[in-house]
């Protein structure tokens, strides 16, 4: 039976949708698309098929190229130990790239648990992504400092002269370009982190909405 039957509440409480009104709204909602929209929809379907086939093999090709690159590096100077370690890596890369293109986000899409569980799963995934982003952001500057200290040390510099060397480097063209690149990278990190926080906030609100619906359905009477 179509999900359109609803009791009319009469004079008590809020007005409910009559079945006639519901049918009218449903007919309005489902009005057939015109010829232009039908062509547009057919075009979208064709593009989706082409994109899916392209992505299906692109990831595998990337894995193949990576594997071939590793193989080439291994066999330029073949050493038994590097071959023994490298070949399993190559096999794993081939296997992983084939598997991952097959799976994609399949598990999440076809998950048959409730919609609330789906949204909560998305929220957990987003929270984990945010945590990784936050850690990366916190480690960004210390990593820059440690790396620059290592380079300074490798060039024969001492810890005492590090600050002076960095100040001098920043007055040179190469140093200025590096600072600009690092600043842009930092701003992108921050923007990504803020975006992830906003998305997580929306997902958490949505989880609350689903919990509200579930609570309502569970209440007696």
């Amino acid at each position: 039976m179509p999900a359109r039957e609803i009791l009319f509440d009469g004079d008590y409480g809020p007005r409910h949708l009559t079945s006639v009104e519901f049918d009218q709204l449903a007919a309005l909602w489902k009005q057939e698309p015109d010829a232009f929209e039908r062509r547009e929809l057919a075009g979208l379907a064709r593009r989706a098929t082409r994109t899916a086939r392209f992505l299906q093999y692109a990831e595998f090709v990337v894995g193949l190229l990576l594997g071939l690159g590793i193989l080439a590096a291994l066999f330029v100077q073949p050493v038994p130990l590097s071959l023994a370690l490298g070949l399993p890596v190559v096999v794993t890369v081939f296997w992983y790239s084939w598997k991952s293109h097959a799976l994609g986000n399949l598990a999440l899409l076809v998950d048959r648990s409730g919609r609330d569980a789906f949204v909560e799963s998305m929220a957990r995934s987003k929270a984990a992504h945010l945590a990784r982003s936050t850690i990366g952001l916190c480690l960004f500057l210390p990593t820059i400092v440690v790396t620059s200290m290592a380079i300074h040390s490798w060039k024969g510099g001492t810890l005492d002269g590090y600050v002076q060397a960095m100040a001098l480097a920043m007055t040179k063209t190469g140093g200025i370009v590096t600072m600009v690149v690092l600043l842009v990278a930092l701003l992108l990190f921050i923007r990504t982190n803020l975006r992830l926080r906003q998305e997580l906030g929306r997902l958490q609100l949505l989880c609350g909405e689903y919990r509200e619906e579930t609570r309502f359905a569970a209440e007696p009477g």
Partner: protein
Amino acid sequence: MVAEASREELFSEVATRHTGLISRIALSYEADPSLRRELMQDILLAVWVALTAFRGDSSLKTFVASIAQKRSISHVTRRAREPRQVELPPDLVSGAATPDEIAMQNDRKKHLVKSIQLLPIPQREAIVLCFEGFSYGEVGQVLGISPNAAMLRCQRAKSSLTAIMGRDI
């Protein structure tokens, strides 16, 4: 699991029979036409990928509706604002009616779509499925809830929609 040839046939059936459903589900989440086209493309791609796991234990329409709504939820949670209050295209309604009738129907449909977009997402999903003719059992299948819970959610959605639309039903 579905073989490659079967997936082609199933996707062809989706493209032939269910793109209207996908389009309307996308419309309930995204008013901006260009973003809606992106969302529909995303949904179709997701359906293509997910068809490998289609076991036939639900109808293809139910399967497609579930994928479409999940993708739409991902879409709106990524957007900065939701729902986007963009002016809907003037030709939302088609048909061989007179220009006055078309204009009236356009206004009614715009009001209906905007009202649906204002519903909380759990109720929005339910009301759209109701409008699409799904039974409570099928609504429950799509949403992963019991038929009884689906019925209650649909009724709450109808009440909320009535309250939003007011006298303009």
